[in-house]
């Protein structure tokens, strides 16, 4: 039985595609996750592209993307569905409106729910799952395992044949397993039962050549001089290697800095010549903490 590798990580080279650089093992990992129909849990330092991976996969495979950005207040159920009880309560107080008789009009589906309901394959992004409460991932176990969910509050008897025709039901089961990408910042520990169901991948911070690609791909409309970009990236790596930084500069800051250097027409020689980090032109763009700024000033 041969399995075709679906995701090829070519987003970057395709001009219509979403600019995303994926290295070979990440491509392999994505394909393994798709094949095994298990969620892919990605971790890595900030700015390494965890969140954008889902978008890149959706773009390349031409599938709809459902995004679920987790907050500390998120509850598992909300990703599947939510019921506007308050509106129903309000409606029920208006005697002429008997819409409130049925629960169905007040149900709306969350990103994961939409994906599991849909008849087509899709990609689901669950972003920063570690922000939520400890029990949150455990509440999703069955849904992640069996790819189905049930609306507990719905009484099956209220569903008319028209409703069913429109695709409503009490239990939804995915016909095509969605590709689920979960990202985590590693702030909190995730429960073991949840981790067991995921495939785990760690995305490293990009290396120099990759950073070069990232710049080219993210700033396509600017005519960048290659020497300048190279010199800038090398300085950037030097900054990153400093110990004890409150927040080490990441790809976002790097792109901002390259833009600044370009618009202010800084010469690449100016970047290469100065060994002292604090004399690098416009280096302050890279840092977001006063403590880090002071530290580098004193270097």
């Amino acid at each position: 039985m041969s399995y075709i590798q679906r995701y090829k990580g070519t987003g970057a080279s395709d001009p219509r595609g979403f600019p995303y650089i994926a290295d070979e093992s990440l491509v392999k990992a994505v394909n393994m996750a798709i094949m095994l129909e298990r969620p892919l849990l990605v971790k890595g330092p900030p700015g390494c592209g965890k969140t954008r991976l889902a978008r890149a996969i959706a773009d390349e495979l031409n599938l709809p993307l459902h995004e679920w950005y987790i907050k500390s207040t998120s509850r598992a159920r909300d990703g599947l569905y939510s019921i506007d009880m308050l509106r129903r309560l309000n409606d029920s107080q208006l005697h002429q409106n008997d819409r409130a008789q049925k629960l169905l009009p007040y149900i709306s589906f969350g990103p994961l729910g939409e994906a599991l309901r849909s008849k087509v394959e899709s990609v689901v992004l669950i972003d920063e799952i570690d922000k939520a409460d400890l029990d949150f991932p455990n509440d999703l176990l069955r849904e992640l395992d069996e790819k189905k969910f049930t609306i507990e509050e719905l009484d099956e008897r209220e569903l008319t044949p028209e409703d069913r025709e429109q695709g409503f039901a009490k239990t939804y089961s995915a016909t095509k397993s969605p590709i689920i990408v979960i990202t985590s910042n590693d702030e909190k520990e995730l429960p073991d039962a949840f981790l067991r169901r995921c495939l785990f991948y760690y995305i490293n911070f990009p290396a120099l050549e990759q950073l070069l690609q990232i710049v080219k791909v993210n700033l396509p409309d600017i005519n960048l001089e290659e020497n300048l970009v190279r010199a800038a990236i090398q300085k950037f790596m030097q900054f990153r290697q400093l110990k004890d930084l409150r927040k080490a500069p990441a790809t976002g800051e790097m792109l901002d800095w390259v833009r600044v250097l370009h618009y202010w027409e800084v010469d690449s020689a100016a970047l290469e010549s100065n060994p002292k980090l604090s004399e690098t032109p416009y280096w302050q763009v890279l840092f977001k903490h006063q403590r880090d700024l002071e530290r580098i000033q004193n270097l």
Partner: protein
Amino acid sequence: MAKPLLLLLDVFMALRERGFELGIQEYLIALRLLAENELVGSRQDLILACQLMWAKSLEEQQLVAQTLEMFLPPRLDSPELASWLGDVEKEKAALDKESDQTAESKAPDDAPPSKPESSSVGLGPELRLPFELVAATSLEDVSDPAISPGQPDPQDLTAGPPDAATALDADTVMEIKGHFTLDKPPEEEDDEDKFIFEIELPVPDRQIRQAWRKLRRFRRSGPAVEMDVEATLTRFSKQGGVLNPVLRPHLRNEARLLVLADEGGSMLPFRHIIQPLLEAIRQSGLAEVKVVYFHNVPGREVFTDWRMEEVVRLEDLVATPATPHGILIISEGGAARHRYSEERLEKTLEILTWLRNYTPRIAWLNPLPAVRWPGSTAGVLDRGRFVPMFALEREGLIRCVASLQRAGN
């Protein structure tokens, strides 16, 4: 040579022994993945696949890679594996002719998988070890550059004649028996430390954090954002309708923990496990974790740093309003050297009684297992039930946290 099916089983059991929580499902998935030749075509892929499925953190990934290296022979020969992986590389065939460990002989071109006797499956040029190494050492002393995803391929050891590579060059990482590895992020290119040292804690880091998350003191604080259903319904019944639902703030865990850690002397050997333990406790989501140090017996004055230079009064730390919700004492209590000291016992009891004026929630964590306590000061403290004492192991930690959570309720 072990057949590949059993090979993975060895790796799987070895990982379980090292504390990985893997079940049958995980093993079956691995087999399923391997059956896909397209996806797993080389040794690198095999390692990646195992890391994907079995490792749940960066440290675990390195462990998986190492364990695989230990068990995977440099060349796997088996018709089963050949048919599974379906890959025989031409260069491998030529090189296999030179280094002849086993009795196989190979034809110069690919041996097709259907030939059962002489198919030696190459798994990628990066695996080949120098001929002398393979001859001289047993499988467990195998050295190979560490493989982790995202790194470029380890150096191609097949470049050049085999005997030129006898001396292990600077880029090779040695595996020390007893599994010591030093954690290092993969993007750092450090030429000096090629030894990977890893602290093997009696309780894995993740379990410590999960255990301490159970120390909870929930309180509602912050902006009122959550709907209080009961209060809303009450308002509804009083007003005959609801215009504004009643809101309340979220529950937050406001647990505060004070740790009194014994430092120096008999506790010296335990420092390398106590520090990660404290770090894990700090990261387990408690509102506040304060650590202070003492030597042998906590007194009215303790130190804020492990070098014991800065003094602070214990009373300031436990008096209201900042009374901690739990006090954890970490000390071997004489068990390390099997010593009982009446003076130490008395002083300890005195400080415990004094602390109980402020809070009854005190627990004692002993790095040594319970079998070592009898006959020492710690043993008396435990037998006499002067303080709940727990050993530093998974169950001990869970019971310790439960005891702190429950105490005084």
